[in-house]
């Protein structure tokens, strides 16, 4: 097999470099005299000190040129609709039904404003309330907040609830340690850390998941709780999880389940039965809402009844036939974000769950596990690739692999393989979250959306790249060849002096002088 894909490669200038002064996409007619006479001057509301003396230098481009510009740029990306993207494991890439996009583009959803009076938004409040009931059924927990705008924000929410719980019992000062595992998502450590906890981490034992004895060594009267992902980032499921939660409870701690990606257990196992007191779902992963390029997103945080009083305000309550926002929550941890959650994501997730029903939800997990395991049988054919933990311990629905052997043989590592996938029309493959314990890691996750043909084509590409590396390492090290962009100088990514995360930093670095 040789790469069959050829991406567009345009020499497209920046939008600001296109067009000529005075060029317009649309010229609105001036208001008729009568209207002009009655309409207030729109500038009058702006204090003089804030008005510009010169107009901003906006791009001046006619419509056809503008359309061409953005179409060209879109041809230089590899989006979900044009390229198989399951290589991006731990992100649970799946098909988001287009019908749900029609739903969120209905004026009833699109024109909503979060500050509207609740009398005028009964419909969306009902959707939020019903979605909460569904998540309660799926997790076994009792209440959810849809307010956090990301999975990490949901972990922070849950850590804050753990803190509030211990404070309410007079143990807030004493219980200042959260236990996590190093193969849990990194936010399971950074979220509690941001909420003021010290973090105690567990490393995997010989089977790829933390040992019970390590947990016992971590527990003390300072333990506030455990925040853990299962299956872990490696895809390996900790079979002793009920024992873990029992021991943490005995030590006086709470148990928080990171279910950002619940694709392996959806409809099969629930947080409650595993002994957890809190959990969260990423609605933009498991529940099919698109990732939207780092947001807007939704991390739904769930708790058992006895912790519901700590949830962020407001929560949606059903009183009779009416849905209300309950702001009167004196023990709440406060707001994680404004309003009640991203409505469009709630609508998509609600529609997705409703379309599948309980049996369909379970089938999602079963198909995802089957797909991932079929992919695994194919990836065992990739030269120089290995499973870093015992193969007897079958991962669930994402797999962490190691290309260490290929790297030692050829000098071609996981990042090189990932880049070259673009030559075959596939999106890159995810390596690992921090820290890189598995050398040359790769973590694909073939979710339920992908066909056997998709999986075979992807695996064939991996095998082909590895064989090319063995035949001629430079051929792969120089790739990809058929894309909009080949290789970029990544040095800036490792150099904090060259990062400009905010305009304030940019100004501090002297890169910008006013304007």
């Amino acid at each position, binding site marked *: 097999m040789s790469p069959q894909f050829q991406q567009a490669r345009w020499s497209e200038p920046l939008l600001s470099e296109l067009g000529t002064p005075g060029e317009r996409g649309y010229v609105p007619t001036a208001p008729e005299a009568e209207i002009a006479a009655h309409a207030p001057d729109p500038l009058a509301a702006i204090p003089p000190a804030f008005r510009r003396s010169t107009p901003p230098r906006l791009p001046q481009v006619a419509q056809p040129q503008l359309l061409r510009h953005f179409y060209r740029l879109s041809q230089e990306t590899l989006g979900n609709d044009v390229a198989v993207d399951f290589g991006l494991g731990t992100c649970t890439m799946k098909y988001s039904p287009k019908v749900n996009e029609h739903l969120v583009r209905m004026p009833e959803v699109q024109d909503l404003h979060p500050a509207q009076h609740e009398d005028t938004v009964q419909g969306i409040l009902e959707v939020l309330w019903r979605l909460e009931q569904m998540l309660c059924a799926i997790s076994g927990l009792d209440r959810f907040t849809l307010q956090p705008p990301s999975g990490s924000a949901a972990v922070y929410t849950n850590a804050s609830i753990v803190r509030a719980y211990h404070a309410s019992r007079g143990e807030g000062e004493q219980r200042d340690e959260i236990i996590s595992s190093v193969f849990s998502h990194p936010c399971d450590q950074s979220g509690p850390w941001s909420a003021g*906890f*010290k973090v*105690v981490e567990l490393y995997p034992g010989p089977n790829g998941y933390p040992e019970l004895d390590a947990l016992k060594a971590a527990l003390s009267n300072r333990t506030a709780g455990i925040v853990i992902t299962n299956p872990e980032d490696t895809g390996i499921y900790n079979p002793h999880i009920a024992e873990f939660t029992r021991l943490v409870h005995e030590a006086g701690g709470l148990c928080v389940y990171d279910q950002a990606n619940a694709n392996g257990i959806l409809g099969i196992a629930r947080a409650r039965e595993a002994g957890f007191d809190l959990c969260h779902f990423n609605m933009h992963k498991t529940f099919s809402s698109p990732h939207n390029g780092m947001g807007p997103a939704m991390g739904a945080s769930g708790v058992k009844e006895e912790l519901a009083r700590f949830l962020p305000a407001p929560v949606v309550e059903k009183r009779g036939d009416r849905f209300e926002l309950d702001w009167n929550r004196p023990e709440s941890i406060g707001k994680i974000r404004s309003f009640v959650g991203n409505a469009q994501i709630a609508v998509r997730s609600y529609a997705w769950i409703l379309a599948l029903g309980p049996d369909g939800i379970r089938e999602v997990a079963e198909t995802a596990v089957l797909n991932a395991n079929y992919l695994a049988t194919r990836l065992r054919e990739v030269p120089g690739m290995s499973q870093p933990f015992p193969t007897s311990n079958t991962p669930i629905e994402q797999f962490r692999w190691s290309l260490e052997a290929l790297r030692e043989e050829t000098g071609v590592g996981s990042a090189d393989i990932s880049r070259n996938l673009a030559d075959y029309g596939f999106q890159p493959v995810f390596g690992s979250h*921090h820290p890189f*314990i*598995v050398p040359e890691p790769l973590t694909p996750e073939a979710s339920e959306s992908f066909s056997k043909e998709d999986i075979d084509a992807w695996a064939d590409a991996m095998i082909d790249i590895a064989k090319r590396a063995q035949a001629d390492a430079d051929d792969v090290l120089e790739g990809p060849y058929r894309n909009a962009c080949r290789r970029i100088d990544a*040095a800036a990514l490792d150099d904090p002096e060259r990062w400009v995360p905010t305009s304030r930093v940019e100004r501090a670095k002297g890169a910008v002088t006013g304007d």
Partner: protein
Amino acid sequence: MIGLVVNPVAGLGGAVGLKGTDGMVDEALARGAVPRAGERAVLAVRALPPEVPLATAGGAMGADAVRAAGREPALVVDGGDGATTADDTRRAVAALAEAGCELILFAGGDGTARDVCAAIGDRVPALGVPAGVKIQSAAFAESPRRAGELAGAWLTGRRRERAAEVVDLDEDAVPAGRVGPRLYGTLRVPLGPGLVASAKSPSNDEDPAAVNGIAARMAERIGDGTAILGPGTTVAAVGREMGLDTTLVGVDLVRGGALVLRDAAERDLLEALDGDGATTVVTPIGGQGFVLGRGNQQISPAVLRAAGIGRLTVVATPAKLAVLGARPLIVDTGDEATDAELRGWHRLVTGYDEETIYRVE
């Protein structure tokens, strides 16, 4: 100008089953080993920008490789008589630094890195072209080609560097049959993405936030108390955080916020310890996970007992632990009873508010 030094006998031992080549050249050649370091250096030179002038040592110590890569050296310094002892490497490196080389490329292994370190320390930036049997030091690029690329990028770029630990076999421990790593110092190596780190060369220097966090936490914990500080960049950061001029490769004793013993021997430590004991701070050296018994034998079983065996605190950055690939840390103090007491689960300090439960065997 870039300086190139080749240790022509580096790597000879590996192909014929020796653990290194230091002092074993004749044995390795007798067993049929073929020198490869020169070839590796050629690959590195080919990846250098052609306009950069090259200085090197004579013959097999560099000039041959430069010419084999199709270049003519701008300067050839005296590289000894070609016997290529450690002394030759040191002399050539010193001469290249003296001649104004801005970066020293050296082809070899851990032993060669140690010689370069002895010659220039961290005065002149240096970068290893991996050609030796043992590559545990963090001063090497991933491959010869990447060494050339990184050197070129550094020379024409912003010239940022980081400190890299130079680790080699602990020769003092070899007669006792306890083969293991020891920290010999640091080199300043060019900073570049993914070029220097590898699974076998721990590089916690790339994680300054974690090092600083550990240092701040340990300085708080030690406070006015007594502490024994072992070798390593992470532990050295603790001393720095306390405002003390502690050693990088030696063992120090601090008390009451002051440096009481610098580069202490076992006997000094035993004399200085009193009934109050001490917090003993150690960190794994090299990629094998030794925390006691390699490169820090001054912290003997007797010292550990006098300090209080339960007061051993292992510090490590997540990057250093990651290198172990979930293998346990190792203690080998030479006293089985002490080792037995130390085995089990330890609470490692891995950041300011971060600890890790890790097994010590």
